[in-house]
């Protein structure tokens, strides 16, 4: 063994010595197959010859358009609320900051269906806030496109907050001090120094947030229902199509898979090369 070691090229010096044990390698390969094979199956079974016409069906296009619009609106909503929330968590020392951070991440681990139920209880027509909104302004969210946006934002916002807060913590706060000595107020500092410094973190968080919103199913179907053209997003359409037209379900799934791959490519520098 030691003779082998000495013959190793220099670049391999910090690799673990010897062959990896099969007891680890086999489950590793099985795990990889488990993750990749279903996606490969999707590609194999896809009706490639009729793909174009199927994609152009009104129902597919409606669902795709609605998904893109709602996910984008949800992302904007998350940016509007999530970036200030992340800034507060990162920069303002207040008692209970850990508790607040834990609360913010609850939607990450909460089953989305539960999120949908919770949204119904608060913003439903008879909900705590919803009844007042309906009575005072005539605004109702359940079973509307706006409801879809709310459901998606609820589930996706933690991704943005965590990403932006991490970026803010990593940024050097002395740049903000330098800006203050130059006469910039807190808002100017935030706008002209803080945000540009953490822009990559905000962008990554927004992409992540958007991808999560695009794939949202449980909270959406619970809170907003499944009305084609109004609340039926791509994941809902996939689920519905699976019972009536499996080929269409595959096509819709392919579209979502393609979007995921694009997102992964957009974030590759952040995730695949963690240096």
């Amino acid at each position, binding site marked *: 063994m030691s003779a082998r070691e000495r013959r190793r090229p220099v670049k391999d010096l910090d690799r673990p010595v010897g062959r990896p044990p099969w007891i680890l390698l086999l489950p590793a390969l099985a795990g990889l197959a488990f993750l990749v094979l279903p996606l490969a199956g999707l590609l194999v079974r896809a009706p490639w010859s009729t793909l174009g016409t199927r994609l152009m069906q009104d129902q597919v296009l409606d669902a795709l358009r609605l998904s893109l619009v709602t996910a984008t609106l949800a992302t904007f909503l998350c940016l509007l609320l999530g970036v200030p929330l992340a800034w507060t968590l990162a920069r303002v020392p207040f008692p209970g900051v850990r508790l607040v951070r834990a609360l913010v991440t609850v939607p990450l681990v909460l089953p989305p269906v539960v999120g949908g139920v919770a949204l119904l209880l608060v913003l439903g027509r008879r909900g705590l806030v919803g009844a007042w909104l309906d009575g005072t302004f005539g605004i109702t969210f359940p079973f509307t496109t706006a409801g879809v946006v709310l459901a998606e934002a609820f589930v996706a916002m933690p991704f943005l907050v965590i990403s932006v807060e991490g970026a803010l913590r990593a940024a050097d706060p002395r*740049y903000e001090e*330098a800006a203050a*000595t*130059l*006469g910039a*107020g807190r808002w100017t500092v935030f706008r002209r120094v803080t945000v*540009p410094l953490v822009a990559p973190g905000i962008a990554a968080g927004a992409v992540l947030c958007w991808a999560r919103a695009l794939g949202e199913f449980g909270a959406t179907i619970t809170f907003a229902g499944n009305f084609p053209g109004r609340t039926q997003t791509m994941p809902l359409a996939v689920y519905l199509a699976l019972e009536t037209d499996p080929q269409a379900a595959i096509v819709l799934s392919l579209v979502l898979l393609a979007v995921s791959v694009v997102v992964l490519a957009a974030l590759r520098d952040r995730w695949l090369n963690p240096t």
Partner: protein
Amino acid sequence: MTSGANQGVRGLDARLVVRRGAFDLDLALTAGPGEVVALLGPNGAGKSTALRALAGLVMMAGGHIRLDGEDLRPLSPERRGIGMVFQDYLLFPHLSALENVAFGPRSQGAGRREARRRAAEWLDRVGLAEFASARPRALSGGQAQRVALARALAVEPGLLLLDEPLAALDVHTRMEIRAALRRHLTGFPGAAVLVTHDPLDAMVLADRIVVVENGRLVQDGTPADVARRPRTDYVARLVGLNLYRGRAEAGTVTLGDAATGPTWTLDTADSLEGEVFLAFAPSSVALYRTRPDGSPRNLWRARVDAVERHGDRVRIRLSGPPFDAVAEVTPAAVAELELSEGRAVWAAVKATETHVYPA
């Protein structure tokens, strides 16, 4: 001292009290218009904390800051009308050199065009007009320092703060930038406070030096005065003098306290009485292998602790009893006297080479 009496005072008048756990800073500081005051002290003495307190970046536990009679202490940093150059410059990485300099005027309410015009003017003044569109990461250390200076001056501050402005530069650039910085400081009409741990920077750039140790002022004077009459071991080491404290009486100075240990008397050429400092330069210490004839009066037996090169001279650290001292001799003398660690030598200082001043 009432606040009313200070209303009309021009320049900076401050007492900075900052407490942070075990560290405690209490420093009175003044700087007239056009005056450059250097805060000189070892690392951790509280110099940077004092500067940050002036800028409003740390909370003060007490004291006051008045600039041209105006009370700055209740104001947040952005409203103090100060300019600050940070040790590592902190140029905004996402803005060009021009936009960095324009940031201050913009924040003060100037329009975009006006701010850029003023920024361009300042960049020109520090000799970097052609680097206006460069990003900070494309600038060399010296260029970044000049942009940082232009950025601080572009807000036309009443008080300019510089935190170790030359520390991040290599030796060669440092000389060049030091000279340039001196020109800009001379032209600056307001008060300026400079933090440094380099005595040379302080001597060259400052009109007055305030020495800070452990959060307290230990000496305050012109560079020449501080260099000639150090009042602590730290300053004495910085300016390269042997420094002792003792009691003067009829032309002799007694070192040590008879109650706690042995004492030693040195003859001097001064006629002060009472508590004094006694200083002499390492080069005025003469070393002998054997007891010299016609012995000079200030003669003592010392042990060589260390032999160190110092430019084209050699520094010999001598330890007592009776006291420690540093001597400076030529390399030839080292060979001749066979000076090496642990060797015993005779050391002498002429009375006329000593300098005595009140403690």
